[in-house]
């Protein structure tokens, strides 16, 4: 059953910017990676799902509810991490989380404490003085603390260090296990590849591919087997290049960058974003 459904969504900003005839869906309990370079239309699509923008044509629905006209009902079971974090600067993190709890009328079943611990965030300081990473953590906690069924995450790991990125990936994996539906945008293939079941690629406002993560991974990795003179060299080579050593043979794999994947889809047309 598809929970998030976008059909022929159009919003034209002029100059070829915007989204054009975008359609895809995310099933119940699925993690969907929404991949594309900067300015491709990821955030614009997500803003339509959030009910911030009205579609010029086409429809967006979540659980069968229209994302524009029934946005307050849609929001009830939804968690959102915005692409650009901008909270009330005058508040401290603690005040902000308390405010959101009251504003959303979350009640007592909040996961706030558990999440604060998981991301090692001390929310006591003023948001104005927080680093990019701290604000991002605060955004994650604000999005997850009311235990939503649907998660819309716009470049959620930006600003996080690798350790915290890992914790976030684990959190998303756990949520998926609990049957949550997740839409996660990113401009890094590696990030969505690790967490998502299916991946949709958007470029210049148009969907260019929707495929399972495994298929895409298969299609865009290359393997080379190199034979070296002796096993010592082979072992050293395997360590240096992250390959798998088998006697004097070492198999190394390379992943294409997003740029290359796009070029692949466009038959070599340079991505000019």
């Amino acid at each position, binding site marked *: 059953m598809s929970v998030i459904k976008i059909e022929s969504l159009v919003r034209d900003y002029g100059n070829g910017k915007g989204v054009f005839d975008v359609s895809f869906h995310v099933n119940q309990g699925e993690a969907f990676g929404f991949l594309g370079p900067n300015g491709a239309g990821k955030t614009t699509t997500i803003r339509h799902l959030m009910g911030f*923008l009205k579609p010029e044509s086409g429809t967006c629905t979540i659980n069968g509810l229209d994302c524009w006209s029934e946005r307050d009902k849609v929001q009830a079971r939804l968690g959102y991490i915005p692409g650009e974090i901008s909270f009330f600067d*005058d508040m401290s993190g603690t005040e902000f989380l308390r405010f*959101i709890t009251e*504003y959303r*009328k979350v009640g007592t079943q909040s996961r706030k404490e558990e999440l604060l611990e998981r991301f090692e965030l001390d929310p006591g300081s003023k948001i104005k003085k927080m680093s990019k990473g701290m604000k991002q953590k605060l955004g994650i906690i604000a999005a997850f603390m009311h235990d939503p069924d649907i998660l819309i995450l716009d470049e959620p790991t930006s600003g996080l260090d690798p350790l915290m990125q890992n914790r976030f990936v684990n959190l998303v994996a756990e949520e998926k296990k609990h049957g949550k539906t997740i839409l996660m945008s990113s401009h890094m293939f590696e990030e969505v590849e690790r967490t998502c079941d299916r991946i949709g690629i958007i470029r210049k406002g148009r969907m260019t591919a929707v495929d399972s993560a495994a298929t895409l991974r298969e299609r865009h990795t290359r393997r080379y087997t190199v034979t070296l003179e002796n096993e010592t060299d082979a072992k050293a080579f395997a360590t240096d290049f992250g390959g798998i050593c088998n006697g004097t043979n070492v198999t190394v794999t390379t992943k294409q960058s997003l740029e290359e994947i796009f070029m692949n889809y466009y038959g070599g047309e340079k991505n000019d974003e």
Partner: protein
Amino acid sequence: MMNKALYRREMKGSIKLLIIFGAIITLYVSIIIHMYDPQMMKTLDSFAEIMPELMASVGMKADSATLLGFMVSYLYGFILLIFPMLFCILRGNALIAKYVDKGSMVSLAAAPVKRHTIAFTQMSVLVSGIVVLIFYITLIELICTGSSFPGEADITALFVLNFGLLCLHLFIGGICFLSSCFFSDTRYSLASGAGIPAFMYVLQMLANVGGNAEKAKYFTFFTLFDPDGIIASENNAIAGIFILLAGAVVLYASGIMIFKRKDLYI
């Protein structure tokens, strides 16, 4: 209709401004009321006679016989118009447009709260601030007149006068709120929310000078608030109050409607 958590947060945001403007108003109102003294009056009237245009432009005229007339001349032409107006401009802009511009509207819009509720709550915050300010002005005036000149001020007329002042500022607040809902960029929201009332006030100053410039009064809503007319219980002046009130309702309602339908690039 209203979100309590948001209302509380925003009222906290209003407090600082309310205290500052409250203090300024206390200072002016108490000083000016204590200046009401036949001897002193002559000095001020002589100013008005020497440079009538300048004094008239800020609503100060000679021959302010009664205490209330004196207050109308020296308080209701400038001080009690400008400071609450500044409050409307600053808060009006900050309640909607600033959040949209900075992107922090995300926290409010990405929640199971209707846009109608968000806008209505923000409007209530602005209206509450204006009501508190006018209520405070009335209180200070009652205390000052009561302590210095007991029995001299016509209390009923003062209440009607301040009800008129309230409606005027609700109307100005309506302009600021509507601009705030309409524009997603603080620059434009401020330009129209501050620009329109300021321009109208300048027209009012021009009209006060008299002569040919008096025609300017047909182009400014400040004409609808006629303090001299109110204390003389003129029908036109009373009607003006209700036109301002009705206008304010229309402005706030349109602001909310616009906010409900607008695209938010947040």
